């Protein structure tokens, strides 16, 4: 018997706003001027917080962090497409998105200075803390999605982020598989920034696209220009609409670039060329979006200057507040081992405090 083709698959690529600021009128999302400016502001704030944190880290005023510069469209535009009822289940390179979903600038500062206080949930907000174990959070997203389905919350879905390296992890594949079987309302967003610390995308997987990983689980997989905020917005919005309508999960590969180091503890000149980085500068998501706004006549240098001043003072105020915080309860970790009281933990707390007192006396 001759072989016959039983299935055929394809992966689409979406770009709406190109590097020069040209827009595809047919695909252009219908967003008001206010909305467009809000999205621009979100990306710009993310960039500025990122760059300030880099300075603070170099001055020893905060610890290690993973800069997001260059990836703002890939995570801020999805955050912008979400509603208050949608859940944000992030990794660790989405600071702008977190701020857009309702975190304060104080939170990343505290987190990256070694305090769990940075993970405190803004009132009632559906934002999970930073997740450092690569792709592990994608499973939480699927579980949350199951719970929202179970509770009949038709208007909530979950957006989860991970990177190109994350597509090699079993947890991501298990998450896609469970989400496919459960038709779980999840939007999987892979920020393919081309580098997993020192491992280039080409050595991460031989798959020609990352989007095609989803096809094995019968989940639509779309590749998107991850530096195009309009495309990322539209892709996420469509995926959320599908999720809310009970049509199940979507996988979005956001093709972007990590302009900075993996974390501040890393030196990328060891493994990649400056020419490669330069090549991506022209595709910057924020300058591209600014051109778009200017062409629309809703943005100009004066407004830009005003925004820069506004954001600078916002960040200044947060840094000031952060640096004034000194009263971190030493034994707080004992408060949060369990939700119930246990002698063993309390005895260890007393021993810990006693040792602190002795250290203070000896000092």
């Amino acid at each position, binding site marked *: 018997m001759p072989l016959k083709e039983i299935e055929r698959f394809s992966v689409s690529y979406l770009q709406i706003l190109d590097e020069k600021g040209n827009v595809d009128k047919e695909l252009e999302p219908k967003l008001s001027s206010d909305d467009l400016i809000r999205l621009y502001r979100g990306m710009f704030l993310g960039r500025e917080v990122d760059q300030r944190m880099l300075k603070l880290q170099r001055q020893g005023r905060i610890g290690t962090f993973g800069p997001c510069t260059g990836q703002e469209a890939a995570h801020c535009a999805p955050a912008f497409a979400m509603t208050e009822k949608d859940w944000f289940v992030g990794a660790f390179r989405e600071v702008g998105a977190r701020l857009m979903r309702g975190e304060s600038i104080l939170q990343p500062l505290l987190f990256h200075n070694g305090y769990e206080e940075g993970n405190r949930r803004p009132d009632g907000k559906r934002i*999970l803390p930073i997740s450092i174990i690569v792709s592990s959070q*994608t499973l939480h997203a699927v579980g949350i999605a*199951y719970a929202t389905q179970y509770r009949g919350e038709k208007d909530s879905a979950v957006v989860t982020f991970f990177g190109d390296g994350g597509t090699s992890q079993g947890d991501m594949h298990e998450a896609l598989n469970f989400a496919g079987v459960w038709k779980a309302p999840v939007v999987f967003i892979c920020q393919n920034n081309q580098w997993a610390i020192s491992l280039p995308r080409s050595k991460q997987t031989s798959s020609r696209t990352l989007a095609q990983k989803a096809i094995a689980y019968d989940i639509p997989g779309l590749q998107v220009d991850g530096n195009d905020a309009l495309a990322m917005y539209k892709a996420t919005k469509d995926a959320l609409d599908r999720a809310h309508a009970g049509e199940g999960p979507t996988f979005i590969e956001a093709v972007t670039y990590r302009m900075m180091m993996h974390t501040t503890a890393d030196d990328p000149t060891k493994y990649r060329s400056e020419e490669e980085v330069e090549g991506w500068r022209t595709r910057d998501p924020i300058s591209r979006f600014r051109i778009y706004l200017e062409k629309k006549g809703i943005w100009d240098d004066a407004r830009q200057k005003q925004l820069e001043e506004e954001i600078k003072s916002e960040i200044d105020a947060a840094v000031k507040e952060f640096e004034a915080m000194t009263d971190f309860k030493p034994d707080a970790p004992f408060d949060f081992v369990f939700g119930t009281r246990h002698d063993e933990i309390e005895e260890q707390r007393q021993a810990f405090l006693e040792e602190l007192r002795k250290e203070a006396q000896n000092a």
Partner: protein
Amino acid sequence: MPKMTMVQAVSFALEQEMAKDDSVIVLGEDVGMDEGVFRATAGLYKRFGDRRVIDTPLAESAILGTAIGMALAGLKPVAEMQFSGFSYLMIAQLEGHASRFRARSQGQWTCPLVIRMPYGGGVRALEHHSESREALYGHIPGVKVVMPSGPRNARALLVAAIRDPDPVVFMEPKRSYRAFREEVPEEEEVMEIGKAQIAHEGADLTVIAWGAMVPIVLPIVQEVETKRGVKIEMIDLLTISPMDANLIAASVKKTGRCVIVQEAPKTISVASEIIAQINDKALLYLQAPVRRVTNFDVVTPYFGREMMYIPSPGRIRRAIEETLDF
């Protein structure tokens, strides 16, 4: 009071809690239509349907990982690991997330969930179906580890685990699943997690055991008491972590002699921790060195040899008598 086996008591607890609280859901491999490979979820699928009794794809990390998401979103998932020997695939999610959400968010996100798993040897099973690895789980801060020893406490502790605000690893001795029956009250019975129980009172020696070892040790205790005219105190640990060290210390202070019986290997084990606790809290009351009767530090042998390695009645009896004679 109905008489039940341990595996019946487990499904009884699950059914009662599910009937009471619609946030309780069960997930795992073959837990639905098939009612679990040991029938621990008997009747649940029929009564509560496939939304609450989820036959998951075959992936332990995902079973716990999605259960974590469900718990974060307000459900109370009870996840089954089909055998403890397959549970190691979910340790990354347990150590990395379930145990940490409370601390990480300073109490604003919590993971109230239960991970049930049959553990232990003595059932002539294949490789990976006979280990006793409670020490692995007991070593993770933020995780409670509970090991019932009989039908009645299995039911009361499982109810407590489901209602607990923290992740609970609930290790069920599969060797005892159908070994004996006990009366289990129809009405609600809850035992406190973190508390050991005096299973038998005595003044001359303390024996500590948990899980599958308890029904093995108890008749030996009674035998030695009759033979030697002594009174032996038997502690059923029930919770491995957080450990009820104060109850152990109080008993050892009273008896001055102690034997610990565990199915698990010797080194860096729960028995080691109990000895350290006695050292901290009751050392000067000891009249004899604390003895451990344990498995050996070998890779769990296949079932042809396993009963030579698991503490046998003879080994337990000798340790008790030698400690009495010291």
